[in-house]
């Protein structure tokens, strides 16, 4: 009898935590999840291996205003016809969408470096992935602390 009660309570707790997790997911639709980030990256690289290195991602480690964050991505590459960067893709973990931007370069770029200003909705990780002309992918990741988030729920 005692055994039976215990099992029931365990089942109940399991069920309750399942419901709680479901609630957490459905209540926060405006946030990319690590799974969405992984999917977005897979859409770009396919099944290819992404190696760490060659890419340099410059973002301030501590950001006061998430509405406009300067970002520079550079890739170590000679940028010749035989060996150049074809594209640079930037992703984030916790904005409503996992994509930030895709930038397409070529041997005429001369230098594989781009800068822009981005929005960050939360303290999170940013990932830059570069595709080289030989088909290889290289990446760099940076953790950024945001004190004032870009407001997705802002009331006007």
């Amino acid at each position, binding site marked *: 009898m005692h055994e039976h009660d215990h099992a029931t309570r365990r089942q109940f707790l399991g069920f309750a935590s399942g419901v709680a997790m479901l609630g957490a997911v459905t209540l926060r639709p405006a946030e990319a999840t690590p799974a969405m980030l992984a999917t977005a990256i897979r859409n770009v690289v396919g099944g290819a291996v992404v190696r760490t290195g060659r890419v340099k991602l410059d973002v301030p480690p501590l950001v006061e205003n998430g509405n406009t964050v300067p970002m520079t991505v550079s890739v170590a590459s000679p940028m010749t016809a035989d060996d150049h960067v074809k594209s640079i893709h930037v992703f984030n973990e916790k904005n409503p*969408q996992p994509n930030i931007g895709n930038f397409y370069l070529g041997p005429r770029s001369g230098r594989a470096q781009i800068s822009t200003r981005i*929005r960050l909705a939360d303290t999170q990780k940013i990932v830059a992935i570069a595709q080289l002309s030989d088909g290889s992918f290289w990446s760099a990741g940076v953790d950024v602390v945001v004190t004032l988030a870009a407001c997705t729920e802002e009331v006007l």
Partner: protein
Amino acid sequence: MASALINVPKRAKAGEIIEIKTLMSHIMETGYRRTATGEVIPRDIITSFACRYNGVEIFRADLFPAIAANPFITFFTVATESGKLDFEWIGDEGFSETASASITVE
């Protein structure tokens, strides 16, 4: 209404790597914000930017709502010949703007 700011060196040596800076004024409304009455403000962003050097595309970018308002983009190119650089921004709600700059290569 919309206006572009572009910075291209007027003169460059042949083969020199030059930096190009561009800024287009645009609200870049994300589509995730709401009004006081709770209605979603529809997305209105620039989705695509391209640069052509004497008609040949040398740079292109896909933009997402995570790009800050008044998109500022800088990139590099090799100064190959004198001529014209054309810039084009395309976005939601039929947004389409162009700008151009000329360069003399010695």
